[in-house]
Protein backbone atom coordinates (compact mmCIF):
# COMPACT_ATOMS: atom_id res chain seq x y z
CA UNK A 1 0.00 0.00 0.00
CA UNK A 2 1.22 3.46 -0.78
CA UNK A 3 1.85 5.55 2.26
CA UNK A 4 -0.71 8.32 2.50
CA UNK A 5 0.67 11.70 3.36
CA UNK A 6 -1.00 14.32 5.35
CA UNK A 7 -0.34 17.88 4.28
CA UNK A 8 0.50 18.52 7.90
CA UNK A 9 2.91 15.75 8.50
CA UNK A 10 4.72 13.09 6.61
CA UNK A 11 3.30 10.10 8.32
CA UNK A 12 5.93 7.71 7.18
CA UNK A 13 9.00 9.77 6.81
CA UNK A 14 11.26 6.90 5.84
CA UNK A 15 10.98 3.26 4.77
CA UNK A 16 12.37 2.00 8.04
CA UNK A 17 9.37 3.31 9.78
CA UNK A 18 7.82 -0.05 10.50
CA UNK A 19 10.91 -1.29 12.19
CA UNK A 20 11.17 1.75 14.38
CA UNK A 21 7.49 1.97 15.03
CA UNK A 22 7.59 -1.18 17.13
CA UNK A 23 10.05 0.38 19.49
CA UNK A 24 9.53 4.04 20.10
CA UNK A 25 7.91 5.78 17.18
CA UNK A 26 4.34 6.66 17.93
CA UNK A 27 2.06 7.08 14.99
CA UNK A 28 0.46 10.44 15.15
CA UNK A 29 -3.03 9.73 13.99
CA UNK A 30 -3.71 13.25 15.08
CA UNK A 31 -1.68 14.14 12.02
CA UNK A 32 -4.91 13.50 10.21
CA UNK A 33 -7.84 15.58 11.03
CA UNK A 34 -10.33 12.84 11.27
CA UNK A 35 -11.37 10.05 8.94
CA UNK A 36 -12.38 12.36 6.13
CA UNK A 37 -8.94 13.93 6.08
CA UNK A 38 -7.42 10.47 5.99
CA UNK A 39 -9.75 9.44 3.17
CA UNK A 40 -8.78 12.54 1.22
CA UNK A 41 -5.11 11.74 1.66
CA UNK A 42 -5.69 8.17 0.56
CA UNK A 43 -7.74 9.29 -2.41
CA UNK A 44 -4.89 11.56 -3.51
CA UNK A 45 -2.66 8.48 -3.68
CA UNK A 46 -4.95 7.13 -6.41
CA UNK A 47 -3.55 9.96 -8.48
CA UNK A 48 -6.76 10.44 -10.40
CA UNK A 49 -9.35 13.13 -10.51
CA UNK A 50 -11.30 12.93 -7.31
CA UNK A 51 -14.44 12.58 -9.40
CA UNK A 52 -13.19 9.30 -10.73
CA UNK A 53 -11.77 7.67 -7.66
CA UNK A 54 -12.79 4.15 -6.96
CA UNK A 55 -14.69 4.16 -3.73
CA UNK A 56 -14.27 0.42 -3.41
CA UNK A 57 -10.50 0.77 -3.68
CA UNK A 58 -10.55 3.70 -1.33
CA UNK A 59 -12.53 1.73 1.24
CA UNK A 60 -10.04 -1.07 0.90
CA UNK A 61 -7.10 1.30 1.44
CA UNK A 62 -8.74 2.85 4.45
CA UNK A 63 -9.56 -0.48 6.05
CA UNK A 64 -6.08 -1.83 5.57
CA UNK A 65 -4.55 1.36 6.97
CA UNK A 66 -6.79 1.14 10.02
CA UNK A 67 -5.92 -2.52 10.41
CA UNK A 68 -2.24 -1.64 10.25
CA UNK A 69 -2.56 0.92 12.97
CA UNK A 70 -4.61 -1.35 15.13
CA UNK A 71 -1.97 -4.04 14.61
CA UNK A 72 0.47 -1.60 16.20
CA UNK A 73 -1.87 -1.46 19.16
CA UNK A 74 -2.28 2.25 18.81
CA UNK A 75 -5.29 3.99 20.16
CA UNK A 76 -7.70 5.09 17.49
CA UNK A 77 -10.38 7.68 17.91
CA UNK A 78 -13.85 6.22 17.69
CA UNK A 79 -14.70 8.23 14.61
CA UNK A 80 -12.04 6.36 12.61
CA UNK A 81 -13.62 3.10 13.63
CA UNK A 82 -17.11 4.28 12.82
CA UNK A 83 -15.92 5.28 9.37
CA UNK A 84 -14.18 1.93 9.00
CA UNK A 85 -17.37 0.09 9.85
CA UNK A 86 -19.37 2.17 7.46
CA UNK A 87 -16.82 1.69 4.66
CA UNK A 88 -16.81 -2.05 5.25
CA UNK A 89 -20.57 -2.01 4.91
CA UNK A 90 -20.37 0.14 1.78
CA UNK A 91 -17.72 -2.10 0.25
CA UNK A 92 -19.84 -5.17 0.76
CA UNK A 93 -22.89 -3.43 -0.71
CA UNK A 94 -20.88 -2.36 -3.73
CA UNK A 95 -19.86 -5.96 -4.32
CA UNK A 96 -23.32 -7.42 -3.97
CA UNK A 97 -26.10 -6.99 -6.50
CA UNK A 98 -28.58 -4.30 -5.46
CA UNK A 99 -31.96 -5.43 -4.19
CA UNK A 100 -34.68 -4.86 -6.77
CA UNK A 101 -36.68 -2.10 -5.15
CA UNK A 102 -35.78 -0.33 -1.99
CA UNK A 103 -36.42 3.14 -0.70
CA UNK A 104 -33.00 3.38 0.89
CA UNK A 105 -30.23 4.92 -1.24
CA UNK A 106 -28.34 2.61 -3.53
CA UNK A 107 -24.74 1.70 -2.88
CA UNK A 108 -23.76 3.86 -5.85
CA UNK A 109 -25.58 6.81 -4.31
CA UNK A 110 -23.74 6.31 -1.05
CA UNK A 111 -20.43 6.00 -2.84
CA UNK A 112 -21.12 9.15 -4.82
CA UNK A 113 -22.09 11.00 -1.66
CA UNK A 114 -18.84 9.99 -0.03
CA UNK A 115 -16.85 11.08 -3.07
CA UNK A 116 -18.67 14.36 -3.02
CA UNK A 117 -17.83 14.87 0.63
CA UNK A 118 -14.18 14.23 -0.04
CA UNK A 119 -14.25 16.60 -2.99
CA UNK A 120 -15.90 19.26 -0.88
CA UNK A 121 -13.25 18.97 1.78
CA UNK A 122 -10.56 19.23 -0.85
CA UNK A 123 -12.28 22.21 -2.45
CA UNK A 124 -12.53 24.09 0.82
CA UNK A 125 -8.91 23.29 1.58
CA UNK A 126 -7.89 24.75 -1.72
CA UNK A 127 -10.07 27.78 -1.07
CA UNK A 128 -8.53 28.22 2.39
CA UNK A 129 -5.09 28.08 0.86
CA UNK A 130 -6.04 30.70 -1.73
CA UNK A 131 -7.52 32.86 0.98
CA UNK A 132 -4.42 32.58 3.11
CA UNK A 133 -2.24 33.44 0.14
CA UNK A 134 -4.01 36.74 -0.46
CA UNK A 135 -2.36 39.99 0.47
CA UNK A 136 -3.50 40.40 3.99
CA UNK A 137 -4.12 43.63 5.78
CA UNK A 138 -1.57 44.20 8.50
CA UNK A 139 0.82 41.68 7.01
CA UNK A 140 1.19 42.42 3.33
CA UNK A 141 -0.76 45.56 2.82
CA UNK A 142 -1.19 48.32 5.29
CA UNK A 143 -3.72 50.89 6.20
CA UNK A 144 -2.79 54.44 7.05
CA UNK A 145 -0.45 54.10 9.98
CA UNK A 146 -1.31 57.40 11.54
CA UNK A 147 -4.98 57.87 10.83
CA UNK A 148 -6.19 61.38 11.36
CA UNK A 149 -9.24 61.07 13.50
CA UNK A 150 -12.19 63.24 12.82
CA UNK A 151 -12.47 65.30 15.95
CA UNK A 152 -15.89 66.27 17.12
CA UNK A 153 -15.99 69.96 17.88
CA UNK A 154 -18.94 70.66 20.08
CA UNK A 155 -20.59 73.98 19.68
CA UNK A 156 -22.67 74.69 22.70
CA UNK A 157 -25.97 76.28 21.92
CA UNK A 158 -27.57 77.72 24.97
CA UNK A 159 -31.21 77.40 25.70
CA UNK A 160 -33.08 79.87 27.87
CA UNK A 161 -36.50 81.39 27.47
CA UNK A 162 -37.57 84.88 28.36
CA UNK A 163 -39.58 83.28 31.12
CA UNK A 164 -36.43 81.66 32.55
CA UNK A 165 -34.68 85.01 32.41
CA UNK A 166 -37.46 86.99 34.04
CA UNK A 167 -38.22 84.47 36.74
CA UNK A 168 -34.51 84.28 37.56
CA UNK A 169 -34.42 88.03 37.90
CA UNK A 170 -37.62 88.13 39.95
CA UNK A 171 -36.36 85.36 42.23
CA UNK A 172 -33.06 87.03 42.95
CA UNK A 173 -34.79 90.37 43.57
CA UNK A 174 -37.26 88.69 45.89
CA UNK A 175 -34.38 87.12 47.76
CA UNK A 176 -32.33 90.28 48.16
CA UNK A 177 -35.30 92.55 48.88
CA UNK A 178 -36.61 90.19 51.54
CA UNK A 179 -33.23 89.90 53.13
CA UNK A 180 -32.77 93.63 53.49
CA UNK A 181 -36.34 94.29 54.69
CA UNK A 182 -36.63 91.54 57.23
CA UNK A 183 -37.61 92.89 60.67
CA UNK A 184 -38.09 90.55 63.60
CA UNK A 185 -41.72 90.73 64.67
CA UNK A 186 -41.42 88.29 67.56
CA UNK A 187 -43.02 88.95 70.92
CA UNK A 188 -40.35 89.37 73.49
CA UNK A 189 -40.64 89.20 77.26
CA UNK A 190 -38.65 92.06 78.60
CA UNK A 191 -36.73 91.70 81.82
CA UNK A 192 -39.17 94.12 83.41
CA UNK A 193 -42.15 91.98 82.50
CA UNK A 194 -40.46 88.89 83.86
CA UNK A 195 -39.52 90.63 87.07
CA UNK A 196 -43.08 91.84 87.58
CA UNK A 197 -44.43 88.35 87.20
CA UNK A 198 -41.84 86.81 89.51
CA UNK A 199 -42.38 89.48 92.12
CA UNK A 200 -46.07 88.65 92.25
CA UNK A 201 -45.10 85.15 93.32
CA UNK A 202 -42.69 86.14 96.05
CA UNK A 203 -44.00 85.36 99.53
CA UNK A 204 -45.75 82.28 98.26
CA UNK A 205 -42.81 80.02 97.62
CA UNK A 206 -41.66 78.62 100.90
CA UNK A 207 -40.25 75.40 99.46
CA UNK A 208 -37.68 74.90 96.68
CA UNK A 209 -39.71 75.00 93.53
CA UNK A 210 -38.51 74.63 89.93
CA UNK A 211 -38.56 77.86 87.94
CA UNK A 212 -40.54 76.18 85.18
CA UNK A 213 -43.44 75.55 87.52
CA UNK A 214 -43.94 79.29 88.00
CA UNK A 215 -43.60 79.91 84.34
CA UNK A 216 -45.79 77.06 83.20
CA UNK A 217 -48.72 79.31 82.28
CA UNK A 218 -46.43 81.26 79.98
CA UNK A 219 -44.42 78.42 78.45
CA UNK A 220 -47.22 76.85 76.41
CA UNK A 221 -46.48 79.00 73.37
CA UNK A 222 -43.42 77.51 71.60
CA UNK A 223 -42.58 80.83 69.96
CA UNK A 224 -42.18 82.68 73.24
CA UNK A 225 -40.76 79.83 75.29
CA UNK A 226 -37.17 80.92 74.85
CA UNK A 227 -37.72 84.56 75.56
CA UNK A 228 -39.86 83.77 78.64
CA UNK A 229 -37.21 81.42 80.02
CA UNK A 230 -34.36 83.77 79.33
CA UNK A 231 -36.03 86.83 80.77
CA UNK A 232 -37.35 84.96 83.80
CA UNK A 233 -33.90 83.61 84.51
CA UNK A 234 -32.40 87.07 84.19
CA UNK A 235 -35.06 88.53 86.48
CA UNK A 236 -34.54 85.76 89.03
CA UNK A 237 -30.83 86.50 89.16
CA UNK A 238 -31.65 90.13 89.78
CA UNK A 239 -34.10 89.25 92.59
CA UNK A 240 -31.55 86.91 94.14
CA UNK A 241 -28.97 89.69 94.07
CA UNK A 242 -31.44 91.95 95.85
CA UNK A 243 -31.83 89.26 98.50
CA UNK A 244 -35.47 88.63 97.75
CA UNK A 245 -35.18 85.01 96.67
CA UNK A 246 -32.71 82.15 96.80
CA UNK A 247 -31.63 80.12 93.75
CA UNK A 248 -30.32 76.58 93.59
CA UNK A 249 -29.16 74.36 90.76
CA UNK A 250 -27.90 70.85 91.42
CA UNK A 251 -25.79 70.55 88.28
CA UNK A 252 -25.26 72.37 84.99
CA UNK A 253 -28.48 72.19 82.92
CA UNK A 254 -30.38 70.77 85.90
CA UNK A 255 -33.67 72.49 86.75
CA UNK A 256 -33.26 75.78 88.60
CA UNK A 257 -35.11 75.89 91.91
CA UNK A 258 -36.06 79.02 93.83
CA UNK A 259 -37.76 79.95 97.12
CA UNK A 260 -38.42 82.97 99.32
CA UNK A 261 -35.34 84.25 101.08
CA UNK A 262 -37.35 85.77 103.85
CA UNK A 263 -39.19 82.61 104.87
CA UNK A 264 -36.15 80.52 104.90
CA UNK A 265 -34.34 82.64 107.43
Amino acid at each position, binding site marked *: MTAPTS*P*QKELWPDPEWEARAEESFVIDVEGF*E*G*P*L*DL*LLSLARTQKVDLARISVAALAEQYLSYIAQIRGLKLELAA*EYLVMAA*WLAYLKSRLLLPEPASDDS*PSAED*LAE*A*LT*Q*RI*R*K*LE*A*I*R*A*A*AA*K*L*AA*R*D*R*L*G*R*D*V*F*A*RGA*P*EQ*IAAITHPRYAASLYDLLSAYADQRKRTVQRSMRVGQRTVWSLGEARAILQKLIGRIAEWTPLEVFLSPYLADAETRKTVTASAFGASLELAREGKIELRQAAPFAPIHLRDRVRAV
Partner: protein
Amino acid sequence: MAERATAEIVPFGPLAEREAEDRQRQMRIVEALLFAAAEPLGEDVLAERLPSGADVPALIRDLQATYAGRGVELRHVAGKWAFRTAGDLSYLMRREVEELRRLSRPALETLAIIAYHQPVTRAEIEEIRGVSTSRGTVDVLLETGWIRMRGRRRTPGRPVTYGTTEAFLDHFGLAALADLPGLEELKGAGLLDISGSLGPPLPRPPAGDELTADEDPLDETLLFTDIEPEQER
Protein backbone atom coordinates in the same frame (compact mmCIF):
# COMPACT_ATOMS: atom_id res chain seq x y z
CA MET B 1 -20.08 74.75 -29.67
CA ALA B 2 -22.49 77.28 -28.35
CA GLU B 3 -24.16 77.54 -31.71
CA ARG B 4 -25.05 73.92 -31.88
CA ALA B 5 -28.69 73.42 -31.18
CA THR B 6 -28.49 70.23 -29.23
CA ALA B 7 -30.74 68.98 -26.53
CA GLU B 8 -27.93 68.26 -24.11
CA ILE B 9 -26.23 70.96 -22.15
CA VAL B 10 -22.62 71.11 -23.16
CA PRO B 11 -20.51 73.02 -20.69
CA PHE B 12 -18.10 75.37 -22.36
CA GLY B 13 -15.84 78.25 -21.62
CA PRO B 14 -15.82 79.50 -18.04
CA LEU B 15 -18.56 77.06 -17.06
CA ALA B 16 -16.56 74.02 -18.08
CA GLU B 17 -13.60 75.45 -16.28
CA ARG B 18 -15.57 75.97 -13.13
CA GLU B 19 -16.88 72.43 -13.33
CA ALA B 20 -13.39 71.05 -13.69
CA GLU B 21 -12.36 73.09 -10.69
CA ASP B 22 -15.29 71.82 -8.65
CA ARG B 23 -14.42 68.29 -9.61
CA GLN B 24 -10.80 68.85 -8.66
CA ARG B 25 -11.82 70.25 -5.29
CA GLN B 26 -14.18 67.37 -4.65
CA MET B 27 -11.51 64.84 -5.55
CA ARG B 28 -9.15 66.46 -3.06
CA ILE B 29 -11.83 66.12 -0.38
CA VAL B 30 -12.40 62.44 -1.20
CA GLU B 31 -8.66 61.88 -1.22
CA ALA B 32 -8.16 63.62 2.12
CA LEU B 33 -11.01 61.75 3.80
CA LEU B 34 -9.94 58.34 2.53
CA PHE B 35 -6.28 59.01 3.22
CA ALA B 36 -6.93 60.14 6.76
CA ALA B 37 -9.03 57.13 7.72
CA ALA B 38 -7.65 53.74 8.67
CA GLU B 39 -11.02 52.13 8.07
CA PRO B 40 -12.71 51.83 4.70
CA LEU B 41 -15.29 54.54 4.06
CA GLY B 42 -18.56 54.03 2.27
CA GLU B 43 -19.65 56.19 -0.61
CA ASP B 44 -22.49 57.44 1.56
CA VAL B 45 -20.05 58.77 4.15
CA LEU B 46 -18.03 60.49 1.44
CA ALA B 47 -21.16 61.97 -0.11
CA GLU B 48 -22.05 63.50 3.25
CA ARG B 49 -18.93 65.61 3.19
CA LEU B 50 -19.31 66.65 -0.43
CA PRO B 51 -21.61 69.20 -2.03
CA SER B 52 -24.92 67.59 -2.86
CA GLY B 53 -25.00 66.23 -6.36
CA ALA B 54 -21.32 65.27 -6.36
CA ASP B 55 -20.72 62.18 -8.46
CA VAL B 56 -18.98 60.07 -5.85
CA PRO B 57 -18.44 56.95 -7.97
CA ALA B 58 -16.85 59.05 -10.73
CA LEU B 59 -14.63 60.85 -8.23
CA ILE B 60 -13.50 57.54 -6.81
CA ARG B 61 -12.81 56.20 -10.29
CA ASP B 62 -10.65 59.21 -11.06
CA LEU B 63 -8.86 58.97 -7.76
CA GLN B 64 -8.25 55.27 -8.24
CA ALA B 65 -6.76 55.98 -11.64
CA THR B 66 -4.52 58.66 -10.13
CA TYR B 67 -3.11 56.19 -7.66
CA ALA B 68 -2.80 53.24 -10.03
CA GLY B 69 0.71 51.85 -9.94
CA ARG B 70 1.71 53.98 -7.00
CA GLY B 71 2.99 52.85 -3.61
CA VAL B 72 -0.44 53.41 -2.17
CA GLU B 73 -3.59 52.22 -3.90
CA LEU B 74 -7.25 52.90 -3.58
CA ARG B 75 -8.94 49.60 -2.96
CA HIS B 76 -12.51 48.47 -2.91
CA VAL B 77 -12.94 46.52 0.29
CA ALA B 78 -16.09 45.32 1.94
CA GLY B 79 -18.17 47.49 -0.35
CA LYS B 80 -16.25 50.53 0.82
CA TRP B 81 -13.10 52.34 -0.18
CA ALA B 82 -9.73 52.46 1.49
CA PHE B 83 -6.17 53.41 0.68
CA ARG B 84 -3.81 50.51 1.21
CA THR B 85 -0.15 50.02 0.48
CA ALA B 86 0.41 48.30 -2.85
CA GLY B 87 0.34 44.52 -2.57
CA ASP B 88 3.52 44.02 -4.60
CA LEU B 89 5.49 45.93 -1.97
CA SER B 90 4.54 43.41 0.70
CA TYR B 91 8.04 41.96 0.60
CA LEU B 92 9.29 45.28 1.95
CA MET B 93 6.44 46.09 4.22
CA ARG B 94 5.92 42.72 5.80
CA ARG B 95 5.76 43.06 9.52
CA GLU B 96 5.53 40.34 12.02
CA VAL B 97 2.67 41.76 13.95
CA GLU B 98 2.05 39.82 17.09
CA GLU B 99 -1.67 40.32 17.15
CA LEU B 100 -1.91 38.82 13.73
CA ARG B 101 -1.76 35.35 15.05
CA ARG B 102 -0.88 32.63 12.66
CA LEU B 103 -4.07 30.76 12.14
CA SER B 104 -3.83 27.04 12.67
CA ARG B 105 -4.88 24.91 9.75
CA PRO B 106 -8.15 23.90 11.41
CA ALA B 107 -8.88 27.57 12.10
CA LEU B 108 -8.08 28.60 8.55
CA GLU B 109 -10.20 25.80 7.18
CA THR B 110 -13.07 26.68 9.46
CA LEU B 111 -12.76 30.30 8.38
CA ALA B 112 -12.86 29.27 4.73
CA ILE B 113 -15.93 27.13 5.33
CA ILE B 114 -17.67 30.01 7.09
CA ALA B 115 -16.69 32.39 4.30
CA TYR B 116 -17.75 30.16 1.41
CA HIS B 117 -20.74 28.46 2.97
CA GLN B 118 -22.24 31.20 5.12
CA PRO B 119 -24.63 31.17 6.83
CA VAL B 120 -23.35 27.95 8.30
CA THR B 121 -23.80 26.22 11.63
CA ARG B 122 -21.18 24.50 13.66
CA ALA B 123 -22.69 21.12 12.85
CA GLU B 124 -22.39 21.90 9.15
CA ILE B 125 -18.78 23.01 9.56
CA GLU B 126 -18.08 19.76 11.32
CA GLU B 127 -19.79 17.80 8.60
CA ILE B 128 -17.68 19.40 5.91
CA ARG B 129 -14.46 18.95 7.81
CA GLY B 130 -15.44 15.48 8.99
CA VAL B 131 -14.31 16.24 12.52
CA SER B 132 -15.74 18.00 15.47
CA THR B 133 -14.54 21.54 15.77
CA SER B 134 -13.10 22.50 19.06
CA ARG B 135 -14.77 25.39 20.72
CA GLY B 136 -11.43 27.19 20.75
CA THR B 137 -11.29 27.34 16.97
CA VAL B 138 -14.51 29.27 16.69
CA ASP B 139 -13.50 31.43 19.64
CA VAL B 140 -10.21 32.34 17.98
CA LEU B 141 -12.04 33.28 14.81
CA LEU B 142 -14.60 35.34 16.67
CA GLU B 143 -11.75 37.08 18.44
CA THR B 144 -10.11 38.03 15.16
CA GLY B 145 -13.31 39.87 14.35
CA TRP B 146 -13.48 38.09 11.00
CA ILE B 147 -16.53 35.99 11.79
CA ARG B 148 -19.69 36.75 13.65
CA MET B 149 -22.82 35.05 14.77
CA ARG B 150 -25.43 35.85 12.16
CA GLY B 151 -28.61 34.34 13.49
CA ARG B 152 -30.19 31.03 14.19
CA ARG B 153 -31.10 28.31 11.75
CA ARG B 154 -34.79 27.60 11.82
CA THR B 155 -34.29 23.93 12.49
CA PRO B 156 -34.66 21.86 15.63
CA GLY B 157 -32.29 23.11 18.29
CA ARG B 158 -32.14 26.51 16.53
CA PRO B 159 -28.36 26.37 16.07
CA VAL B 160 -26.42 29.61 15.70
CA THR B 161 -25.34 30.43 12.17
CA TYR B 162 -21.96 32.00 11.45
CA GLY B 163 -20.89 34.40 8.75
CA THR B 164 -18.00 36.70 7.97
CA THR B 165 -17.68 40.38 8.81
CA GLU B 166 -16.54 43.50 6.99
CA ALA B 167 -13.24 43.17 8.82
CA PHE B 168 -12.81 39.81 7.11
CA LEU B 169 -13.28 41.35 3.68
CA ASP B 170 -10.93 44.19 4.63
CA HIS B 171 -8.30 41.83 5.94
CA PHE B 172 -8.29 39.69 2.84
CA GLY B 173 -8.71 42.64 0.50
CA LEU B 174 -12.07 41.58 -0.88
CA ALA B 175 -14.60 44.04 -2.24
CA ALA B 176 -17.47 41.63 -1.57
CA LEU B 177 -18.13 38.01 -0.72
CA ALA B 178 -18.70 37.38 -4.41
CA ASP B 179 -14.98 38.08 -4.87
CA LEU B 180 -13.90 35.11 -2.78
CA PRO B 181 -11.33 33.27 -4.87
CA GLY B 182 -12.83 30.43 -6.86
CA LEU B 183 -16.30 31.00 -5.48
CA GLU B 184 -18.04 30.68 -8.83
CA GLU B 185 -16.23 27.48 -9.78
CA LEU B 186 -17.01 25.89 -6.44
CA LYS B 187 -20.62 26.88 -6.75
CA GLY B 188 -20.82 25.63 -10.31
CA ALA B 189 -19.36 22.28 -9.31
CA GLY B 190 -21.96 21.96 -6.56
CA LEU B 191 -19.18 21.87 -3.99
CA LEU B 192 -20.77 24.50 -1.82
CA ASP B 193 -23.96 22.56 -1.25
CA ILE B 194 -24.14 21.33 2.24
CA SER B 195 -25.58 17.89 2.15
CA GLY B 196 -25.25 15.06 4.51
CA SER B 197 -22.94 12.58 2.87
CA LEU B 198 -25.20 9.78 3.86
CA GLY B 199 -28.43 11.70 3.94
CA PRO B 200 -30.53 13.79 1.61
CA PRO B 201 -28.94 16.95 0.22
CA LEU B 202 -30.02 20.32 1.70
CA PRO B 203 -30.56 23.24 -0.64
CA ARG B 204 -28.33 26.19 0.26
CA PRO B 205 -29.60 29.73 -0.22
CA PRO B 206 -27.08 32.39 -1.23
CA ALA B 207 -25.66 34.51 1.53
CA GLY B 208 -25.76 38.22 2.09
CA ASP B 209 -25.92 40.06 5.35
CA GLU B 210 -29.67 39.69 5.51
CA LEU B 211 -30.91 36.66 7.28
CA THR B 212 -31.94 33.92 4.94
CA ALA B 213 -35.39 32.41 4.94
CA ASP B 214 -34.38 29.73 7.38
CA GLU B 215 -32.52 32.00 9.75
CA ASP B 216 -33.96 33.78 12.76
CA PRO B 217 -32.32 36.81 14.28
CA LEU B 218 -30.11 36.13 17.25
CA ASP B 219 -31.69 36.66 20.58
CA GLU B 220 -29.52 39.56 21.71
CA THR B 221 -29.62 38.54 25.32
CA LEU B 222 -28.19 35.19 24.42
CA LEU B 223 -25.33 36.60 22.39
CA PHE B 224 -22.90 36.53 25.21
CA THR B 225 -23.96 33.40 26.90
CA ASP B 226 -23.02 29.86 26.18
CA ILE B 227 -25.42 29.26 23.37
CA GLU B 228 -24.64 25.86 22.09
CA PRO B 229 -24.07 22.93 24.31
CA GLU B 230 -20.55 22.01 23.34
CA GLN B 231 -18.94 18.68 23.44
CA GLU B 232 -15.23 19.24 23.72
CA ARG B 233 -13.00 16.56 22.46
